């Protein structure tokens, strides 16, 4: 019938109009730039100039240099360690906020408290670790005063450790949030039922609570991974230039106008992130949880 057809037509028109802003935005600022980066990574770079003659030189340079491949492995290593740390610190916190706190108001208040550090700027949060961790920083002073150590601990600042501490603190809340959300959605009767069936706390946790919170863990891990893999500021401010992540390389290359090399690193970083996200999404079917 013609009436039905015109309704269908109108609906498909509406769909198109609703989709248009998103598609235009994403094409202009995501698809085109990515294609551009891939394209530029094959350009010919000379010391003071860059030309669009295609070449594999930058790619070859990346994979033949220990500095560059080393920074790839450093990035992966730091990412894995920070991911593990945010999970170890974040999961118990989320368990407390999302499951053990019975009042909804209190658990909201606790989540807001986790977010309070974000009211200051990113750089201040990172730099605040310097007077904490430094040779004459707060931690060393307290430990010296207590007589626990005789010499200040020097490995605390300007090492990989300080980068890991800083990143764990900054990104932990992105792990806590999604996990606490999933935990708070678990029906308390389920836990009571499991207990009534004779399961102890350990069994209830591993067989019921943890599997049901897994989608939250995956979402949290994706947040943390994406942010840590693209990091350059924390490592720049807390490592004393000893830890070079792919992000730091991009910053230096762009700074010296080495667009082709920066693009190569950019493409590699994007591919790594894509693999990580795809891998994490295989753990759970997020579609079922939404």
């Amino acid at each position, binding site marked *: 019938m013609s009436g039905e057809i015109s309704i269908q037509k109108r609906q498909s028109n509406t769909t198109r109009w609703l989709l248009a802003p998103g598609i235009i935005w994403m094409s202009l600022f995501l698809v085109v730039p990515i294609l551009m980066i891939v394209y530029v990574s094959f350009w010919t770079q000379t010391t003071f100039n860059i030309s669009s003659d295609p070449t594999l030189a930058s790619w070859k340079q990346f994979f033949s240099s220990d500095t560059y491949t080393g920074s790839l492995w450093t990035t992966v290593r730091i990412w894995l360690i920070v991911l593990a740390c945010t999970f170890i610190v974040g999961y118990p916190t989320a368990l407390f906020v999302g499951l053990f706190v019975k009042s909804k108001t209190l658990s909201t208040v606790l989540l807001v408290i986790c977010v309070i550090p974000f009211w200051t700027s990113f750089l201040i949060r990172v730099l605040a670790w310097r007077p904490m961790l430094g040779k004459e920083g707060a931690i060393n002073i307290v430990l010296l005063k207590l007589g626990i150590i005789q010499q200040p601990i020097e490995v605390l600042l300007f090492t990989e450790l300080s980068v890991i501490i800083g990143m764990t603190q900054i990104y932990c809340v992105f792990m806590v949030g999604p996990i606490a959300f999933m935990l708070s959605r678990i*029906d308390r*009767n*389920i836990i*009571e*039922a*499991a*207990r*009534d*069936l*004779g*399961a*102890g706390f350990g*069994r209830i946790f591993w*067989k*019921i609570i943890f*599997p*049901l919170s897994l989608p939250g863990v995956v979402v949290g891990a994706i947040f943390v991974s994406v942010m840590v893999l693209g990091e350059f500021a924390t490592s720049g401010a807390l490592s004393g230039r000893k830890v070079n992540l792919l992000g730091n390389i991009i910053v230096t290359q762009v700074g010296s106008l080495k667009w082709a090399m920066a693009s190569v690193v950019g493409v590699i970083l994007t591919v790594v992130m894509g693999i990580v996200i795809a891998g994490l999404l295989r753990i759970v079917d997020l579609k079922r949880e939404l």
Partner: protein
Amino acid sequence: MDKSVFRLDGVTKRYGDLVALDNASLEAGENEYISFLGPSGSGKTTLLRVIAGFEPPEAGRVFFNGRDITNVPAHERGIGFVFQNFALFPHLTVIQNVGFGLTHGKSGLSAAEVEKRSLEMIELVGLSGMEGRGVDQISGGQRQRVALARTLTMNPKLVLLDEPLGALDANLRSRMRTELRAIRERLGVTFVHVTGSENEALAMGDRVVVLDRGKIIQIGTPGEIYDTPASPDVAHFLNRFNLFDGTLAGGRFNAVFGSVAVPHAVRAGKDVYAVRYDRMRALAPTADPQGPAIKARFIASEYLGSSMMNFFEAEDGHVIELEHHLSLGTPQSFEARQEYLLTWNPEQAIVFGREAAR
């Protein structure tokens, strides 16, 4: 009742100022189906949770199999609990749900034995062939059966069901009623079933416990409860009586329908005159009722399959219901907004009063 399975002795439970259970005492025998009937907030679910061990009582003792279990934690009581919303483990399959207690509790059974017993239980509740399904891939009635099977695999001597049919649609509800009774009879365990529906309580319970505001107000067989409600409140919950407020004095009850001689009355906190819906008759307004009568306007009727419910409105706005069993013949037809004279045999009325002649 040959042997007592559980006994409650003066159980009291408060939430702040609210008294959820007030000195409740009760005894249940082996192989019995007991239903707890009461409006919401009457304490029936609290009572169930106290028996299960989810809530500790402030005063009183709970005995199970002759042992005082008041301070025993829920999972060591050997009492099964079926939750109102079933509380199935959403990420597990049917058989994993049913076998959960055997696998993760203290049964000490091998995986093969657990599977065998789980499959037996799945067959018992009529879910054979569904054991591999996820619990979100089955219907509400099937989920109900999984919840029951999960509890029954633990071989409880007592199973507590918290409004088990509340989440099901009407058709399924009546089928599960029969099913629940049949499953219980096959296993020979005691079921305690909490419900807010008087039909369900009367249809399913070997005995019915009526609760109101934290107090047990009557315990009896469905027949006893139906024929001789112990108080106006019980009569009210049963939803089968027209209740008239009035005063009982000197063997006569005075109310809107005039003064009626009362040969026998039940002692109660207030004076109420109760007439069962199916004991009411409607006459033409000019007829001689030869007994108590009240004028009322016909509002509407409702066809219930086996009977016809007719609704009348008295002059004071009180709605009076009249049930006609269709097996007794074709129902009268009434004209809307017309006045009729409603009458009954005073000997069939149940009268409650402070000044009861008992």
